[in-house]
């Protein structure tokens, strides 16, 4: 029995990992050179509580369950969750009414521990919040993660348990061949008994190629500004939502920076790579963020970025089954939160259908790269005595050591961004101006690559171009 999982984003990677518990061959196909680099890489990274989703939607079904599942998942896969809590802030009576609606909806959805805060309670929880606040909906269960880290962890764990990963391999179409499915990829044809399509922004087109009609996806762009302002806020702060969406937020990250965004720009269906930022929307982010938290300091900008979320006209996830194919389409917000719950259901469905048996030797634990910056003195001393390269700081902004970078390479990093998104080196305020050369020298040594062959992320994103003489 062979199963293909298409897409190594948060959904695909969690599904693939879950399959490796069973006696089945799992192969993951990812178009990009690394895992978690599509929709998963550039979103707000929030574990939503689940009050926002209309009852009887798949969003409502999966969001709060997914949120709860993250705790156990983070213990097995060793990624960081900050349970920061979230606030939906009302600035007038009209907004207070909407916030009260959200409380009701949250209760219907089974969200626990939701409550409305007075102005003073809100300011106590979030001292830097605008003094204009009238009331706020507080959810202690909301949190933040680095979404790509979850995808990396799940894939690492899946590979340890026997899965196979095809990076830089685009699945162009799926076709039926007798009882089997044939994947036509950029690296040739592959044949499988079952297929899970978790191809993110391209899941609709891929389903279409297999003759399955689904509601089409269009990209919704979200631009962000990342600030080197640690502890500016403690919780994820939302404005009161409008028809346009959840609005522009101010939130803390797991890297102790502050994130502003996202915008919500609906783009035409064919603009699935349109991740440019724009002057107009960056200005809008600043304006809206300052309204929530007046002390956000733009002179502390680390960088801006944009990501695309898969949106559709029905504003809900679409999970479409046809024979032994499952297409997971438009996992728009709160898709990240919902992902573990979706993965559980999809895998169980196929397990039952094929009567798959559990493997005896499944190891659910993935070890994280040790982080010197987070350790106490004794722990540091011990690790450095075992492996001195953990005493050599390479990234001075985030205090990332050579040992961590070597470990990231062992875990599959092959590009500068691969290292950046595994270690947080080059993620800080200097954006790699001090450590890029050092990291390239480590890559050169560990991978036997010339400087010319080292890329930032995509195939033609070389860093240098030839030698001086």
């Amino acid at each position, binding site marked *: 029995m062979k199963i293909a999982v298409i897409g190594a984003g948060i959904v695909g990677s969690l599904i693939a990992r879950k399959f490796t518990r069973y006696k089945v061959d799992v192969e993951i196909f990812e178009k990009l050179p690394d895992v978690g680099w599509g929709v998963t890489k550039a979103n707000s990274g929030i574990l939503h509580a689940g009050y926002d989703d209309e009852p009887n939607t798949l969003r409502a079904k999966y969001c709060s369950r997914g949120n709860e599942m993250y705790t156990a998942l983070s213990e097995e896969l060793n990624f960081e969750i900050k349970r920061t809590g979230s606030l939906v802030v009302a600035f007038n009576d009209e907004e207070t009414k909407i916030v009260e609606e959200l409380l009701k909806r949250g209760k219907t959805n089974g969200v626990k521990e939701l409550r409305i805060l007075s102005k003073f309670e809100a300011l106590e929880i979030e001292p830097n919040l605008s003094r204009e606040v009238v009331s706020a909906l507080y959810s202690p269960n909301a949190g933040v993660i680095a979404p790509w880290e979850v995808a990396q962890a799940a894939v690492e764990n899946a590979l340890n348990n026997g899965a196979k990963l095809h990076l830089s391999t685009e699945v162009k179409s799926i076709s039926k061949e007798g009882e089997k499915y044939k994947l036509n990829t950029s690296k040739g044809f592959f044949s499988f008994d079952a297929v899970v399509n978790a191809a993110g922004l391209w899941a609709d087109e891929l389903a279409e190629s297999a003759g399955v009609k689904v509601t089409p996806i269009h990209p919704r762009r979200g631009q962000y500004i990342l600030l080197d302002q640690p502890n500016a806020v403690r919780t994820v702060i939302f404005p009161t939502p409008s028809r346009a969406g959840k609005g522009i937020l101010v939130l803390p990250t797991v890297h102790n920076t502050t994130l502003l965004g996202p915008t919500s720009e609906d783009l035409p269906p064919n603009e699935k790579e349109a991740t440019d*930022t724009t002057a107009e929307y960056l200005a809008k982010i600043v304006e809206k963020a300052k309204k929530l938290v007046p002390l956000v300091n733009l002179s502390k900008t680390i960088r*801006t970025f944009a990501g695309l979320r898969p949106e559709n006209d029905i504003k809900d996830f679409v999970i479409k089954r046809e024979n032994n194919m499952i297409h997971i389409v438009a996992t728009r917000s709160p898709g990240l939160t919902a992902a573990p719950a979706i993965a559980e259901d999809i895998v169980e469905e196929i397990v039952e259908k094929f009567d798959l048996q559990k493997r005896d030797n499944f190891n659910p634990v993935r070890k994280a790269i040790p982080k010197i910056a987070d350790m106490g003195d004794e722990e540091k001393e011990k690790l450095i005595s075992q492996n001195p390269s953990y005493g050599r700081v390479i990234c001075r902004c985030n205090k990332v050591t050579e040992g961590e970078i070597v470990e990231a390479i062992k875990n599959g990093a092959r590009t500068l961004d691969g290292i950046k998104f595994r270690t947080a080196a080059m993620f800080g305020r200097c954006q790699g101006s001090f450590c890029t*050369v050092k990291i390239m020298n480590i890559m050169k040594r560990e991978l036997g690559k010339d400087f010319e062959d080292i*890329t930032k992320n995509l195939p033609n994103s070389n860093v240098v*171009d030839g030698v001086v*003489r």
Partner: protein
Amino acid sequence: MKKLEYDVVILGGGAAGMGAVRGALSQKVSVLLIEREASTGGVLNQCIHNGFGVQVFKRELTGPEYHEMYLEKLEGFDAMYETTVLDIDSENGILKAISTDGVYEIKYGALVLATGARERPFEALRIPGSRPSGIFTAGLAQHFVNLENHLPGRKAVIIGSGDIGLIMARRLTLEGVEIEGVYEIMPYQGGLTRNVVQCLKDFNIPLYLSTSVVRVHGRERLKGITVAKFANGKPVDGTERFINCDTLIASVGLISENDLVEKNIEISSDGGAVVDDLMRTNVDNIFAAGNNICIHDLVDFVTVEGEMAGRNAARVAKNEKMAKRIGIFKKGKGIRIISVHYTTASDPFKMYVRVDHPMNVCTLRMNDTNLKTVLNAKPSEMIELTFDPSKHNLKGNLVLSATEVKR
């Protein structure tokens, strides 16, 4: 954990730190230098152009020459290389550092911060568009070319006319890289006039003032940028122009590196460590010198400050009685940067200031007293002032101002 104790500990082995080593050694105390890199010299090592040492050595040297010649003056100190300080406990005079040998706890009598500066990265400017490879700070490009022997690209634009950007325009031209132009958002240059002349004019590289990048293009490697004219800090509609290039080099300012000590000492609104004329911070046994107090034009100034910081740190470590702060300098009209924020009533000293806009003839005043008249004052060129505390009333604020003399 290994424990060490020194009279004077110096953080950073660049020009300021080496100066501090020399200053401290002159007072016969025990000295430890802690440096992140594998050797002393800091950024001097990659500055292979000349222009260093005119004041200290009375001759023009390259960066590596300046480093080597200065290092020869230093004898009898301990140094830890590839060592990173992670925390400073200024109340107890203890810092923690790590290296491949493990964790160190180091007790100091006095500490000198000589941590220099970092470059403002292009990403911090929030320029719209894409995020491809091919974007470098000038210092990173310089590192690739001068220390790693690699070219950043084939056709480059330089954003910002800071000194390192100007130096790199010449350096890359000499190595066969086409420099399309240097773009400066302000109506005046950011670097020294001598660099504009020697690095741009001599090589026919155009400098576009009041012009900067408004959009980045290219998904993988940089494919080009759009530039536009700027007025009052905003792009002017209709002035956009696309430039085909594979490399963007940003020389858009240096930021004093004080992240480690933000919680320990007073930091100015410009990000520099606030010091008095003894180079002492608000913590009696912590001193600072060089680019972490403010960004300097000349390494020679940095060396002199470092020597003073090291000497005074050693005196504190020996429990000598030091003069108290009396006067407070304030930035008045026309002044952007001052290197020293407080004065004691001790000897005359040198301080450095920058004006906030170009002036043909400018008078520098301390309250109502004229200090100096400067021709062709520019923000890019530091003005050296000698201040004699005995000649001023030190009570109240000492407001330093620069006014244009109308002819």
